[in-house]
């Protein structure tokens, strides 16, 4: 292993090269962290603004010089928000919670059953029925809001939980996702269950669902977020203040005659808080859900 001339020469040339590459990668990784840091900072600015404004007085928000933090943190803004008679904010929070939960439970129930049926129960027209579902993916739900409103109003469901929740349950896309998922579910598990004498229905509830909780959690998280954040449909349906969801209430603050900045931003903070909690605790499933939502086709 004593060094002879040729090997030294051979290794001699790569060494400075390697050093050069390493120096370059140090520079580029510093640049990488710098760029990522800047981007992260910009992405956090809106959150900072919500917190700052929600806990300031109007005088400080609109003051001559920019205040980075409120001098006195105004926790009282929170109770003031709920005492404000012009917008029924507590009611709208309750409405959103009910709509969010029922929308999620209903969508998961109806769409998962259909997805399972389409994926796993042999029926000669199953493919044709699947096309009937697929076609609806081509028509964006938002475009059909005029005819849907017409239908719902003729059912007398305007300004009611029924009107807010039921029309949104039948998502072709969610059904499609469940079908794709169940196609990949291990057949052996269900077969074992059915050999043991369970019906399709029994096997579904006792074997398939308990073994798919991760997928259900992922879809549930996404569905809840989209339900909580939905705006167009609740705006169309919530004609009475009593039926407003949080998003409609927030929107109404923007067009009000009098602008109370601290209240508006406290309302925004309160409306986002549940989602940030969902996000922090269920992020794993949310990421999964997003990845699954995107892997379409």
């Amino acid at each position, binding site marked *: 292993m004593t060094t002879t001339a040729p090997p030294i020469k051979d290794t001699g040339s790569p060494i400075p090269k390697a050093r050069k590459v390493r120096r370059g990668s140090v520079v580029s990784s510093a640049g990488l962290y710098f760029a990522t840091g800047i981007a992260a900072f910009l992405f956090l600015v809106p959150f900072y603004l919500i917190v700052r404004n929600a806990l300031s007085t109007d005088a400080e928000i609109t003051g001559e010089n*920019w205040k980075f933090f409120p001098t006195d943190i105004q926790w009282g803004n929170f109770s003031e928000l709920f005492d404000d008679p012009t917008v029924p904010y507590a009611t709208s929070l309750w409405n959103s919670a009910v709509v969010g939960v029922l929308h999620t439970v209903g969508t998961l129930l109806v769409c998962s059953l259909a997805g399972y049926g389409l994926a796993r129960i042999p029926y000669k027209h199953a493919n044709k029925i699947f096309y009937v579902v697929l076609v609806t993916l081509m*028509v964006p739900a938002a*475009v059909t809001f005029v005819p849907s*409103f017409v*239908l719902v109003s003729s059912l007398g469901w305007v300004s009611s939980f029924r009107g807010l929740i039921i029309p949104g349950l039948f998502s072709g896309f969610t059904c499609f996702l469940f079908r794709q998922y169940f196609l990949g579910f291990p057949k052996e598990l269900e077969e074992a269950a059915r050999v043991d004498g369970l019906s399709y229905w029994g096997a579904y509830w006792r074997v398939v669902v308990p073994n798919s909780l991760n997928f259900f959690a992922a879809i549930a998280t996404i569905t809840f977020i989209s339900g909580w954040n939905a705006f167009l449909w609740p705006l169309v349906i919530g004609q009475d203040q009593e039926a407003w969801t949080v998003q409609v209430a927030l929107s109404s603050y923007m067009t009000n005659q009098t602008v109370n900045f601290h209240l508006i931003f406290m309302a925004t903070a309160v409306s986002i808080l549940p989602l940030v909690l969902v*996000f922090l605790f269920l992020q794993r499933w949310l990421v999964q859900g997003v990845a699954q939502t995107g892997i379409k*086709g």
Partner: protein
Amino acid sequence: MSTTTTHGVAKGRAAEETPAVPRRRGVRGRTLNFWLFTGPFLIGLAVFVYIPIGWSAYLSFFEARYTVTPSTFVGFDNYAYMLTNEKFTDALVTFTVFAAIVVPITWALSLGLALMVHRIRFMKAFFRSVFFLPTAVSFVAASLIWKMSIFSGVRFGLANTVLSWFGIDNIAWLANPDPPWYWLVILTVRLWLQAGFYMILFLAALQNIPQELYEAAAIDGAKPGWQTLRYVTLPQLRATSTAVILLLLVAAYQAFDEFFNLLAKTTWGRPPLVELYYTALGENQDYGAGSAGAMILTLLICVVTLLQGKIMGFGRGEESK
């Protein structure tokens, strides 16, 4: 090699035999079960998706003001009215421009974020969460922050405050259509809300690129950086890119929330859905014209989606799965 083939055969045989296992109930039992599982969904789909579309198609041929059970058949008058209605055609142009700008930018930003987060080692989870967090925020809340605090157009708005540090005068971001600064406001709202979502999709795809490809590329003399990105990473992300662009396009056509909230009292920058909202549910309650507009918009979206699918080769994979 031989094990794989026998495995494949065995699997095939097993698949053929499976229907035999639950034969107790036979075909009729299975059909019944099929409807038991899919029935509720299909009924709902028929009532709340197909009937509205059909009804809307019907209404679009009738004079239907303040009523949803019209009697005056007007043929294509509603369509002619909407297509000659400058507000609506302007809205169609607006949203086409909007989609053409917002889709590539969001694609590039989410891909860029994904590449950065993918390469980062230290605090990776933190950065991923920061970029992903806005996904949880609604368009309404984001519009509110943008309109009331960042781009409020007055002295104490954040954007104008920052500009004033550089000695630049206040800009009326939303209140003045000339120059059209409101596009910057709308664009940044959408970027902030959506980039993280699509970043997650790209991250998932990046993790699936086999490491060997990079090694092979390095052996072939590709320099890390632009060359590997151009000849290894981007081609491997093709399927995801196609899906992301499709999702972005569909989302852009449905833009409503931020336009409605940011430009509530203005007459500029209205996308088609906002226009339809005011046509059908505004003072005139013109369901006929509103329905005709919805039909035109749906048709347009279908055409663009199919066109994009044709160009980027999407949709073929859907059936094979």
